[in-house]
């Protein structure tokens, strides 16, 4: 089963988000786009893997597929294909789908934090933090946290090395 969550509107962040949980390895979604290519510039959504991993493949084309791992933001390159297949490679693989406001784009950056290093998510930013242990606003967390800063910033301290993925709307100038 693929458990797709209800979409949540992040008004201040100006985006719409949901998560999809693939409970078993080998679960698939096939899709068809009108466009003949799949590129970060023309495809407005972003997908962030927060657990497990996925294989993106492109049936009926010669385009090579890619594995999409925890912390990856898809798509990160151009694919000259209009059909795609998303397949979970592990049980309980999860990704987020982030949809921007009309005529806006999503800007994403990734930062590797070393032990003891700090970072801040500003208001109107969406953050994904991956690592064995870190704190968010002084609360200890493990493995993964998804923080939407609608009204307040989030202060992150890497208790151990971790990765921070930030997304925000092009409406803002951070």
């Amino acid at each position, binding site marked *: *089963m*693929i458990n797709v969550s209800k979409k949540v509107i992040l008004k201040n962040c100006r985006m719409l988000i*949901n998560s999809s949980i693939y409970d078993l390895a080998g679960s698939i979604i096939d899709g068809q786009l009108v466009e003949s290519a799949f590129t970060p510039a023309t495809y407005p959504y972003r997908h962030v893997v*927060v657990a497990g991993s996925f294989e993106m493949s492109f049936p009926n084309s010669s385009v090579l597929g890619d594995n999409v791992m925890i912390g990856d933001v898809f798509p990160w390159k151009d694919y000259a294909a209009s059909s795609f297949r998303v397949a979970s490679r592990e049980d309980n693989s999860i990704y987020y789908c982030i949809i921007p406001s009309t005529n806006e784009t999503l800007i994403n950056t990734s930062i590797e934090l070393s032990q003891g290093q700090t970072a801040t998510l500003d208001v109107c930013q969406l953050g994904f933090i991956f690592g064995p242990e870190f704190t968010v606003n002084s609360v200890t967390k493990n493995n993964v946290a998804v923080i939407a800063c609608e009204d307040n910033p989030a202060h992150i301290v890497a208790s151990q090395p971790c990765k921070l993925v930030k997304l925000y709307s092009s409406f803002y100038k951070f």
Partner: protein
Amino acid sequence: MKIIINKLETSMQEIDGNMTEVTTLVPTNYEQATQGSYLIYNPVTGENISESSLEDMQKTYEQINLMINQIQAAEQSLLDFRYSVFITGSHDAGDDVSPYPYALEIV
């Protein structure tokens, strides 16, 4: 002239001060897009239908019908809805929707 609307785009728009999920039907050719593009709210998939009042939905469909009539009158056209962005496979939307995204915290 036959107008084929074959693309659905979901996005967010600020409407009356609220960020709102909007599904846009995009005609295949841009010449028609200036006359034929319009917005509908959660129209085809029924997603988040509980968040839209029946009155809103009815109003939307009335607007669509009005638009279709206008286009047909102006272009002597046939409007052919064909949604080419589709999902198949093991995913069965509607049966397996959980209420909240995994691990999400809003601060």
